[in-house]
């Protein structure tokens, strides 16, 4: 009974991501079409497979040559009707591999950035939830330049969350960290998946990471979707 209720709550948070695009990237063509409804859609493939370009298109930072992208029924890109919703209006958060914290702002101001840009009201409770979730409450007055990679990535996560996106994209968020830091951050990502209630698209070339986090897998090879399915499709992969 309790479990059913909990599943129902989570089911409300699932978001339909519909992607059908193609784009010429240098010497190969990216062609990807899939629909995903999972809590964490893992985008798996080796480097150069086109994963970053794909999520950049979902974010609106890159435009497809042809095709369409829709999130939760809202069309964000449609080359046929020349529709392109700019990145700042998509309410799609993005956590980058290189953190990209604003160097001229302190941690607190970085966290607050998305809220201000979206004109959202201050919500101290929400902020505390996020800083507790990521254990960054003690870093608020610090400057990004002096923090460790692990701290920076957690702050980047918090910053993206506090902008209240409807979808969160993560591009190899552990890619710039050493093994120890990765072990440190992974539990936070699991907590994020279970408690933040925001659907994610998680890009990685590390099958082990995805096995822990993802609920669905899209495999990308040289710009093409080769497999789509549950986490078990990763069994053959390394």
């Amino acid at each position, binding site marked *: 009974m309790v479990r059913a209720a909990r599943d129902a709550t989570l089911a409300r948070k699932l978001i339909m991501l519909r992607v059908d695009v193609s784009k010429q990237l240098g010497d190969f063509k990216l062609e990807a079409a899939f629909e995903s409804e999972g809590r964490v859609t893992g985008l798996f493939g080796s480097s150069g497979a086109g994963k970053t370009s794909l999520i950049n298109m979902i974010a609106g930072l890159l435009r497809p040559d042809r095709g369409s992208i829709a999130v939760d029924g809202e069309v964000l890109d449609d080359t046929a009707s020349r529709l392109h919703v700019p990145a700042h209006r998509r309410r799609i958060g*993005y956590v980058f591999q290189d953190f990209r914290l604003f*160097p001229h702002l302190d941690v607190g101001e970085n966290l607050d950035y998305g809220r201000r840009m979206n004109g959202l009201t201050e919500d101290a409770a929400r902020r505390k939830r996020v800083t507790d979730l990521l254990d960054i409450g003690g870093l608020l007055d610090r400057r990004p330049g002096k923090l460790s990679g692990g701290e920076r990535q957690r702050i980047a996560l918090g910053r993206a969350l506090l902008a209240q996106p409807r979808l969160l994209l993560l591009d190899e968020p552990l890619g710039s960290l050493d093994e120890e830091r990765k072990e440190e951050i992974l539990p936070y990502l699991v907590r994020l998946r279970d408690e933040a209630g925001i659907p994610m698209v998680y890009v990685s070339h590390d099958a082990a990471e995805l096995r822990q986090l993802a609920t669905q897998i899209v495999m990308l090879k040289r710009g093409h979707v080769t497999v789509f399915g549950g986490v078990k499709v990763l069994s053959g992969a390394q």
Partner: protein
Amino acid sequence: MFDISPTEWTAILLSLRVASIATLVATPLGIAVAWLLARRDFWGKAAVDAAIHLPLVLPPVVTGYLLLLTLGRRGLVGEWLADHLGIVFAFRWTGAALACGVMSFPLLVRPIRLSIEAVDRRLEQAASTLGAAPWRVFTSVTLPLALPGVLAGMVLGFAKAIGEFGATITFVSNIPGETQTISSAIYALISTPNGDAAALRLVIVSVLIAMSALIASEWFARRATRRLHGN
């Protein structure tokens, strides 16, 4: 040696006023142009870039003469401005400010452009994903990070404006109290019998202002790099 006569004071204060008005008006325009050159590609971009740098390589007298032809009382645009809007530049301190602004514009734009180019575009991308519209990305990320460069440009432009001579004297001549800046005052004094002492005083003032501006500009430029590294 160091008592400064009223004529000299007038020239110094007028120079300060002309240079500051020129800098204040030129800066927003300079930021806009610098941003365009740093972040946008468009047809004719090379021509625009060259045009902006013209005052650096054209003989200043030529620039002054061109200003006279276009904005003089009987100039192409100047006549219309004077007749319809009552705005006169030639032989007025406003014209001196205009001449100084034009001549210092390339020196203003260059450091600003460089500092905008140095701002990581990936940070601007991150700002977009956080909901910042392009204009807000500029004011909340790009401009604050480029600020030391903007200040370096302003200070350099100010120093150049204080020292401007050729275009100024051609466009607005040498009227004490109205258009006689430090440079034109020195020019008049060295042709005046016994004017050498006064000329020397003004030369010292000029050099002091120029040196301070250059040192300040350097300091800002160095702050720019530190700022970009989040210190």
